[in-house]
């Protein structure tokens, strides 16, 4: 019976069906299932499966994004019950995400945010055209483990370096890992600005983030 419910939960994520995911989350609460179990044995299974399908070319971005949205909806529904039980979902790490100052491209960055949060990271997405000072402020405020910096223009890429330099200056560089992304970002650039890694796509970014916080 419970296995069947877990199966349905996973399927709701695969279908990108937020309504179904919410209904199943409520059903789990009503039947007294531990929310953490609903997540780990039900919903997350779906997220991982979509990620794998995407990685091998069988799923596409809309499926990925909708799966992420459904996951978010399920977790939000389970949240009050987790609080009631005094438990919380294991968070792999806190990530501050931003598209750097002068750059308004957000599609890639938003996608990374969706997938990171679906995969168990606490994401603070600051949006686009974000000045370095604002990024640093947020990093300090939430005590972030990771910073993700997006830049789609060769002219704004330099801001990725600016953020890293600033973290360095404040002595935060050892504690806070920096991932960079965006079309013009290359391995050479990552080395040059001494970032901790980059990824070609959102699924790769999840793997990278997990490696950087030492989960895998």
């Amino acid at each position, binding site marked *: 019976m419970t296995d069947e419910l877990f199966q349905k939960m996973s399927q709701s994520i695969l279908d990108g069906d937020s309504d179904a995911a919410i209904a199943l989350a409520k059903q789990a609460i009503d039947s007294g299932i531990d929310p953490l179990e609903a997540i780990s044995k039900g919903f997350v299974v779906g997220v991982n499966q979509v990620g794998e399908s995407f990685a091998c070319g069988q799923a596409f*971005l*809309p499926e990925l994004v909708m799966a992420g949205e459904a996951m978010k909806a399920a977790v939000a529904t389970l949240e009050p019950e987790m609080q009631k039980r005094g438990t919380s979902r294991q968070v792999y790490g806190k990530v501050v995400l931003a598209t750097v100052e002068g750059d*308004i491209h957000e599609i890639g960055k938003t996608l990374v945010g969706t997938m990171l949060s679906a995969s168990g990271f606490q994401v603070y997405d600051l949006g686009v055209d974000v000045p370095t000072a604002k990024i640093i402020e947020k990093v300090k405020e939430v005590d972030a483990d990771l910073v993700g910096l997006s830049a789609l223009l060769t*002219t704004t890429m330099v801001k990725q370096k600016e953020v890293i330099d600033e973290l360095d200056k404040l002595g935060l560089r050892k504690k806070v890992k920096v991932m960079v992304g965006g079309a*013009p970002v290359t391995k050479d650039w990552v080395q040059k600005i001494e970032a901790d890694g980059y990824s070609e796509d*959102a699924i790769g970014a999840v793997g990278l983030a997990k490696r950087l916080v030492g989960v895998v």
Partner: protein
Amino acid sequence: MQPKLELLSLDLIARILDEAFQLMQKPGIKVQSAAAREMLIAAGASANGDVVNIPEKIIRKALETTPDEFCLYDRKGQPKVWYGGDAVQFDPGSSGVHILDPDTLEHKTSYTPDLARVVKVAEMLPEYAAQSTAIVCNEVPKTIGDFYRLYVVLMYSQKPIVTGSFSVQNLPIMFDMLGLFAGGRQALADKPQAVFDVCPSPPLIWSDFGANNLIELAKARVPAQLISMPLAGAAAPVTLLGSVVQHAAESLSGIAIHQLANPGAPIVWGGAPAIFDMRHGTTPMGAIETAMIDAAYAQVGKSLNLPTHAYLGASDAKVVDAQAGLESGVTAIIGALAGINMISGAGMLDFLACQSPEKLVVDAEGIGMALRLVAGIQVRTETLATALFEGINFKGDFLKQKVTRDLFSKEQHLPSSVIDRDSIRGWQASGSPDTFARAKTRTRELLAAYEPPCYSPEQERELRTMVENLARKAGMDALPKLG
């Protein structure tokens, strides 16, 4: 008869415009320029914060004053580019940040000599009616990058120019640079030598820079070219029609701002839309659906009697290979059949990031074919065939006819050496070169045959001094060496 590709029925065009008018009312257009908002409000729009709800009547009124045609002139003041009707012309794609190294095939950061090379090759090829400020010169500070590019193009080309500014402050500088050749600002307005691209930000946003750019161009009566770029499935609806509606709403609201600033100023219904690749998250310019969005919005623009532009003839391939050839050729043909006045994109690879003079040379062949196609099938003889059969007597002797000698070069587009029509033996004898190898040879030949424009020494000096002074202010002691 000029052959035509029409993807939309009249009913559908009416529905597209109707929904575009609805979008401009609700949710409205985000106009981040206070000056533009004030003009729209004074004309009867309502605003909530920076979101402006623009009633149809403002747009209709603006459309009454937009010119349905205008010309661009070369440095000698001769009309060379016709915006309006179904005229079809091409220019190289613009604002690349890389250049394809023809020997190593690396995508290298582009510098001044690279732009000079692109401009020289485009100057030599009649398939390009206009030049563009084709690549960014990365050794120059970004703050002066826009007028510096224009300077390099002016030094090497007589052709009209498709360009754009990176900041509103630099627009007057660029007007003055062009004015040096046109004979002042007023003369430049009367006989414009360049058109300036202006971009809304999808979805439904006119940034402060974009809107102010429109206003300044209108005031100077220098042609503006709207570059709306819905990204179907990401920054625009996934359906091609949904993206065409968004394009119309962004463009029409731009026209309203532009015409309110100065009624009658010339403006082009252009764009650079793309579908969103659902695997890689990229913006394929060579996709057939991208070209379909272009052809469709051009049809909408034509229904409003507006001059048209599109970004086609580019490829997402990384080298000048079969994919580059087919994407560039197919989309150039679609643009030509759609009767688009200016088609930008030639020479570009990698989602418009990389320019290549060698590709420009290959693309010129595709453009030659496209232009031949839109020239159509014409009646050139009194009888279509019967008179030509006199004296033929069942022999294949048409090569001996005077009419063959007179008409072959009109009937046939004569390709350059880039197109291989040799026998296999001849091809082998010349070293079995592939398209890219032939393009490299032809590029070298064109560069060797290139001659710079004959400006007066005073004109040249004035232009150089002007740019040098501005560059010094931006922290550059000396201008980079040109090509």
